């Protein structure tokens, strides 16, 4: 079923189409919300808000952009609004993502196993600024093009490319530091 057919079915009031739409795009919305907010306690509620907005505004969907881009735009703006609300409240008692609790400072001896390093890398991604995190998620995880990321975030294509390069550069730099520590460990050992 194409996106146009799906939208038509949902507009006609087909409950199965509603369920199908949510199932198809819940991964995208979940990734965006969690990567932007970095909070598990509110993520599911925000995902619900996003989908409610999607259904309410579906009549305004003209089909100029892909449905995934349109939904990602709603998820992006909803998450940013919630993020600023959270910052305003300064709610420090919130439960953070378990991955974010992994210390970015590490001991080289702990970096032997792939899973351990993946956790450290994910914590590094979460320590990046929100725009970098969003762009990395859209580009690598959701495989959006530069043009689509531009439509979602409203950032010019050049800025998107530059943020993507800088985010990768930062992560690579941090990884190289781990590698150097590991080499030193071999040398000492």
């Amino acid at each position, binding site marked *: 079923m194409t996106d146009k057919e799906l939208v038509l079915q949902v507009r*006609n*009031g*087909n*409950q*199965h189409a*509603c*369920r*199908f739409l*949510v*199932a198809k795009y*819940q*991964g995208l919305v*979940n*990734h965006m919300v*969690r*990567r932007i907010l970095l909070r*598990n306690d509110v*993520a*599911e509620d925000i*995902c*619900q808000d996003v*989908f*409610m907005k999607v*259904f309410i505004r579906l009549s305004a969907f003209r089909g100029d952009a892909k449905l995934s881009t349109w939904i990602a735009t709603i998820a992006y703006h909803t998450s940013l609004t919630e993020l600023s609300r959270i910052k305003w409240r300064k709610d420090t008692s919130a439960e953070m*993502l378990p*991955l974010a609790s992994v210390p970015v400072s590490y001991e080289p001896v702990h*970096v*032997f*196993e*792939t899973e351990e*390093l*993946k956790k450290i*890398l*994910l914590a590094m*991604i979460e320590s990046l600024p929100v725009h970098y995190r969003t762009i*990395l998620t859209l580009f*690598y*995880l959701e495989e959006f093009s530069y043009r689509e990321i531009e439509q979602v975030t409203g950032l010019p294509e050049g800025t998107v490319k530059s943020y993507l390069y800088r985010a*990768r550069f930062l*992560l*690579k730099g941090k*990884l*190289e530091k781990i*590698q150097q520590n*590991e*080499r030193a460990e*071999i040398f000492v050992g």
Partner: protein
Amino acid sequence: MKEPKYLWDNTEEGSGNSINELLDQVLKSDCLIPLSDDFADRMAAKVVKRHILKQSLSEFLVYVGVILLAVLIFCAVFYFTSPEAWSRWENVLQPRWNLIVGLAVTGGFVFFADRVILPWAISGREKGSSFS
């Protein structure tokens, strides 16, 4: 002693490539906590309920509008065609205005419950139904 397993090629030439590969691997992997299994079902049910409420509320408002318009037209025609009969009825109804308002409000609530509250309450129980 167990030999430590290093994740990348520790030679200078191989390290750049292995870091890039590792980065790609992590960036493309879905390590985030997924939504609950029944998320799509709950979301669809919520949307259906909301749609039914919106639809039945607008239907109710149309019905109320039509009924009020009909009453208004009837009163206007009655008032202009036979003013004597109108004043007779006015004398009968005016002392009982609280009874009439009470009946109208009760009737309106029963109608509202039948057209809006009941379909909305039942909609959550009917699984797999279309809401068109």
